[in-house]
């Protein structure tokens, strides 16, 4: 009973630890020797175990305990990380996730047998002898590779190969009875320098000169010669025991070279960033969890404060009291800062959403047997919390689509001479007042003809319409309800509830989504979202005795016309403007404004654009441009047309926002 009040905290923290575990395990899979990662994982698992024990969730505790044993064995060097261990650990994480989910719904643990999983973990530890042997085998193969390249060296390598030179790693082992090791090394250097450039050595050249090495040293060279010449030349020197030579080309070829470079880059960065990450983690420790409702409430109170402030300013306008004016100015400054601060509190880095994708992509690429390299950038980009909560599902959808439909299978990729590893880029960045999220793949691109055929088959368009469609418009068909191009319905995507759901969701967040595609080069989905709580620039206008806001980004220009220049064409009022025909919309009619008297001679017209189409809205007068906060009219008024929402003006009055798109 008394533990129940901690249940919520337990669930939140457990989910956080699971997320960390997921992320770090993925990292460990790539860098099996990163002890920092391992410690991090161990700590998360340990904390999770402790928490579960305190809460009395025995199967959670049991499982994490076994996981901890395995991790401990790895940490102490008794076990070596290999992919099956990671797989089993992931399996455990999945179980833990389900279990924690179950606890959050039902308040108790899931009734599922954990023994099989536990047994797998125990088996890992018992099997360790086998793995040690395999590890040793693989390590001898890779002895030369011990000469690790940093980014600088890699750049040299790539450039050299690009210029048609060859790059070798050479290991020279001197005879045990060699007396003057540094002299022998000097001869080796001299021999090589006749036709090669040594750009790296291990140990360092200074150390070799000082004889600070055992029986051998390693070099990296650039040359035009082949490996046999080099080998025989060095072996020709006396007191040389053995020469190992390895050409470096396979890892730095074509596209793969690039991806490896980036991957290596990433490792370097990771290392460099490590300190920073640690600092960041410590910072996270100092946060407070707050219910989003409370923040909404705070936000509303701040809006109220601003409205009251505006009212005070109105009252004060007659007064000449210096103190009063000063106090008001001070109040103004504070409220503005307060407003900004509260807005910032609601901003969350998009990392929260992105962090779950590497795991998803890993699982998908196994399931579909496609090698995928997911590259994420801009995860620090901040978005409003409400948007963050909603954007996850659409992104999952797009990434799955990219991997399932976009990236070809291995066979097809090799046929079209592409790198075997498919690339999916996930990018986020801020662009002016909006945040852009891009999902790009290097797959086969969207087959426009197939899309058209499918659309005809599904009755979305007919043949005539299809012929008239431009390529760009045809791609848009993907977003129509009831569309799915997958020939075989897979588990991953293509249940026919595809992209229209994505589009609807993003539009409900006030955003847009578009596609760029090019055959054989891949597709790119571009999502644009408003930066925050939908603050926009708007033009406030008077229509009759009511005030309305028109979003500034849809306004093309403002002009005035003579009343008698309006013509009637097929029941539609138009004017001739700038050599074109401009349809006229009388807002008083559309908005049902009664007792309204039109100016006899001149009319003010706001020209609004929707795509290529323009339309002139007749208004009474302009009030001015203002930054407004869009508020929804709410579910109860969801059926109202022509109105995109409402905003609260400085004096507390509500003004409606005109949905110009629906009027054109």
């Amino acid at each position, binding site marked *: 009973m008394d533990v129940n009040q901690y249940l919520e905290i337990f669930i939140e923290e457990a989910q956080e630890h699971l997320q960390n575990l997921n992320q770090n395990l993925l990292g460990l899979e790539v860098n099996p020797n990163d002890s920092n990662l391992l410690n991090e994982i161990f700590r998360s698992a340990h904390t999770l175990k402790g928490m579960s024990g305190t809460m009395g969730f025995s199967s959670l505790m049991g499982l994490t305990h076994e996981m901890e044993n395995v991790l401990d064995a790895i940490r102490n060097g008794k076990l070596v990380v290999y992919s099956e261990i990671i797989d089993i650990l992931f399996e455990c994480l999945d179980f833990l996730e389900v279990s924690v989910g179950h606890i959050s719904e039902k308040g108790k643990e899931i009734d599922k047998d954990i023994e099989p999983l536990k047994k797998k973990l125990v088996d890992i530890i018992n099997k360790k002898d086998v793995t040690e042997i395999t590890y040793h085998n693989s390590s001898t193969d890779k002895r030369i590779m011990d000469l690790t390249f940093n980014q600088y060296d890699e750049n040299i390598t790539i450039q050299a190969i690009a210029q048609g030179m060859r790059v070798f790693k050479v290991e020279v082992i001197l005879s045990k009875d060699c007396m003057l090791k540094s002299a022998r090394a000097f001869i080796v250097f001299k021999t090589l320098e006749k036709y090669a450039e040594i750009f790296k050595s291990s140990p360092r050249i200074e150390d070799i000169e000082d004889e600070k090495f055992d029986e051998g040293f390693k070099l990296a060279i650039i040359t035009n010669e082949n490996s046999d010449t080099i080998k025989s030349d060095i072996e020709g020197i006396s007191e040389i025991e053995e020469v190992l030579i390895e050409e470096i080309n396979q890892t730095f070829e074509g596209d793969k070279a690039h991806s490896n470079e980036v991957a290596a880059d990433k490792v370097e960065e990771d290392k460099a960033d490590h300190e920073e990450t640690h600092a960041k983690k410590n910072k996270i420790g100092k946060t407070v969890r707050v219910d989003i409702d409370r923040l909404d409430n705070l936000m*509303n109170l701040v809006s109220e404060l601003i409205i009251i402030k505006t009212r005070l300013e109105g009252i004060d306008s007659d007064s000449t009291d210096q103190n009063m004016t000063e106090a008001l100015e001070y109040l103004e400054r504070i409220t503005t800062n307060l407003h900004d601060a509260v807005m910032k509190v609601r901003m969350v880095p998009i990392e929260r959403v992105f962090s779950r994708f590497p795991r998803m992509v890993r699982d998908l690429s196994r399931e579909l047997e496609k090698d995928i390299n997911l590259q994420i950038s801009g995860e620090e980009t901040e978005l409003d919390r409400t948007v963050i909560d909603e954007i996850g599902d659409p992104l999952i959808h797009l990434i799955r689509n990219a991997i399932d439909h976009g990236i070809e299978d291995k066979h097809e990729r090799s046929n079209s001479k592409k790198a075997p590893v498919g690339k999916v880029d996930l990018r986020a960045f801020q662009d002016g007042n909006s945040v852009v999220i891009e999902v790009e793949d290097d797959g086969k691109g969207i087959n426009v003809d197939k899309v058209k055929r499918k659309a005809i088959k599904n009755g979305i368009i007919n043949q005539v319409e299809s012929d008239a469609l431009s390529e760009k418009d045809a791609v848009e068909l993907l977003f129509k309800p009831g569309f799915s191009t997958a020939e075989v319905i897979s588990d991953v995507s293509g249940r026919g509830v595809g992209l229209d759901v994505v589009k609807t969701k993003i539009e409900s967040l006030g955003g847009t989504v578009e596609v760029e595609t090019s055959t054989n080069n891949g597709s790119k989905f571009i999502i644009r979202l408003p930066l925050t709580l939908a603050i926009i620039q708007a033009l406030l206008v008077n229509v009759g005795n009511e005030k309305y806001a028109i979003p500034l980004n849809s306004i093309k220009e403002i002009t005035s016309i003579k009343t008698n220049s309006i013509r009637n064409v097929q029941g539609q009022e138009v004017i001739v403007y700038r050599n074109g025909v401009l349809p006229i919309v009388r807002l008083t009619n*559309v908005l049902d404004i009664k007792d309204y008297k039109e100016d006899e001679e001149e009319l003010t017209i706001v020209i609004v654009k929707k795509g290529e189409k323009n339309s002139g809205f007749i208004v009474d007068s302009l009030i001015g441009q203002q930054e407004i906060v869009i508020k*929804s009219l*709410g579910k*109860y*008024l969801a059926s*109202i047309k022509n109105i995109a929402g409402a905003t*609260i003006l400085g004096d507390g*009055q*509500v003004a409606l926002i005109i949905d110009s798109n629906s009027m054109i």
Partner: protein
Amino acid sequence: MNNSSTNRQFVVFELDNEEYGIDILRVKTIEKVARITRIPKSASYIKGVINLRGEIVPIVDLREKFKLESKEESDNTRIIIVYIDDINVGLIVDSASTVMEINNDMIEAPPESLGNIEQNNIYGIGKLDNRIIILLDVFKMLNI
């Protein structure tokens, strides 16, 4: 304590000289009439929206909704803000006065017809002393 389980509290208000009640658990606040912004092309009983401490709340004119004669606003006119899940709606009433406790035994099923109010808008008829209070089912009345 035992009695309270059979007692329910209602916010009682007046509309065209009759008394109505709304379950207090559905009532958020009672407000004086604020400036209402008309919503074009909406149902006739929707008066518009108000700014309730930074939140946009739609306002329903209960007289119009119940097809009663409309009446000028007075000092007594109030807006009762009711909430259902996360939806807030304000109801314009002639006046709102008290909170009353009515025993479940004193609540009768609604009669077949009651003027212009549809039967399923009514939860029951409450009797207290000599007063007859029409208890509204907010959920059904607002059609949410």
